[in-house]
Every structure is written in structure tokens, then in C-alpha cells.
């Protein structure tokens, strides 16, 4: 159990990491912390993809290619997200996600 690493170990690790990221993304006020928690969730998904690639299709590496695309999209998402946060900070002098309610009815 301890010495024999299996697919389940990696899946449980990534599930814990995803749950921590989910809690932070739902419960935090600071927009940068929310962005960081989304990165945690993307990393958890990447661990799952690479673990399936290693244990289910070791020769094809399809999961690793999907993980590369997830990293590309995460980089684009962080660049746009940081730009949006800076634009919000210029307008509102705060990045508290509970105070950004211009589109709330």
C-alpha cells in the first residue's frame, strides 16, 4: 500500500488539491487569491491527466499532450485575468470580489 504506487494514489492527491482550490475560489475575497486557487485546480487536473497517461496508455502519451494544452490555456488565462484585475483596481481602488457588483441586479 505504502510502497506500491498505483493510479489511485495520484487520483486521490489531485482530488485533495482540487478540493482545496475549489474552497479557496468560492470562499475568498481577494481576486488574486481566487486566481491562484484556479491555478491550483488546473494543476490538479494536470496531475490526473498525466497519471492516466502513465498508467492507462503508457506508449501514446495523449494525457501529457492534453496537459500541455491545459498549461497553454492557463498561461493565457492568467495574463488576461491579471489585466482584468488591474483594470478593476484602477476603477474601484479595490479588488475585493464582493464589492465588484456592477452587473448585479
Amino acid at each position: 500500500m505504502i510502497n506500491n504506487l498505483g493510479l489511485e494514489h495520484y487520483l486521490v492527491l489531485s482530488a485533495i488539491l482540487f478540493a482545496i482550490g475549489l474552497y479557496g475560489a468560492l470562499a475568498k475575497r481577494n481576486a488574486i487569491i481566487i486566481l491562484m486557487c484556479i491555478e491550483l485546480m488546473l494543476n490538479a487536473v494536470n496531475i490526473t491527466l498525466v497519471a492516466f497517461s502513465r498508467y492507462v496508455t503508457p506508449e501514446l502519451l495523449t494525457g501529457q499532450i492534453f496537459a500541455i494544452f491545459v498549461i497553454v490555456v492557463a498561461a493565457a488565462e492568467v495574463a488576461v485575468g491579471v489585466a482584468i484585475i488591474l483594470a478593476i483596481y484602477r476603477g474601484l481602488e479595490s479588488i475585493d470580489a464582493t464589492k465588484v457588483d456592477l452587473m448585479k441586479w
Partner: protein
Amino acid sequence: MGLAIAFWISAAVIIAAALGVVLLRNIFRAALSLILCFLMVAGIYITLSADFLAAVQILVYVGAISVLIILAIMMTREVQRGNLSNKLQLPAFIVAILFLAVLVLTATNTPWPIAGTAPVAPTTATIASRLFGEGGFILPVEIAAVLLLSAILGAIVLAREK
């Protein structure tokens, strides 16, 4: 044996660092904890014999994304206010715990079709031929290039002073 030790150390540090991101009072320390988490995820990739992906993880996440996040923290003067929670703390905790329980039960009770073969040793050549070769992923690669270009242009437009 050595692989198992590396996995358990990496897993423990990943979970501790992720909890640090959520629980630390200082936002800057939370960002440093996030960088440690990214580094240890690269270690997990090495135990999965994904050497190219570990290098990409360190270059992109530890090198680029963490710099962007720290830059955002320095540009917005919110560090003094601390890492506050909103009113949804308890519902968010319940949702996260329920989601974790579902995921763990599914992961441990499903009979996954494990292939017994050994993994490819240096993965870079195989990944390159899968990405650019015949019948591979060349169209998603081109779309990713367009996506990155439009993200850069969008970030410049959003962050520019009017």
C-alpha cells in the same frame, strides 16, 4: 521504493502548500506557498516519468505565471488587508468536502484498465511526433498559437491607461 518516497514527500508538501495558499494571512506569503506547490507538482510529474512536462511546469508555472501573480500583488495595494474570506465560508467548505468525497470514492472504487507496460523513457521525441506528426494534434497547436496571440492583445488592451 525511492519512487514511493519521492511521491509521498511531494504529495505532503503539495497539500501543505495548497493549504497555505488558502489559510495564510499574508497574501504575499500565500503566493510564495503557491510557487512551492508548483515546484512539487513538477516533482510529481517526474515520479510519473513525464520529464518534458516537468521542465515545462517549472518554466511556465514557476517561471512565468508566479511572476505575473506577484506583479499583480505588488500593483494592487491589498496586502495590508490580508487574506479575507467572504460570507460563503461554510457553504464553500461543505461543497468542497462533498466534492472530495465523491472524487475519492469514484477513484478508489472504479476498476481502471491499467496497462502493465513500462512508460516511454525520454518522452520529448514521442510528444513531438504526436504533436506535429501524421494524424497528430497539429490543428490544436495552431489554435493554441492564435489563442496566445489574442490573449496577449486582450491583456494589452485591458491594462492600458485610457
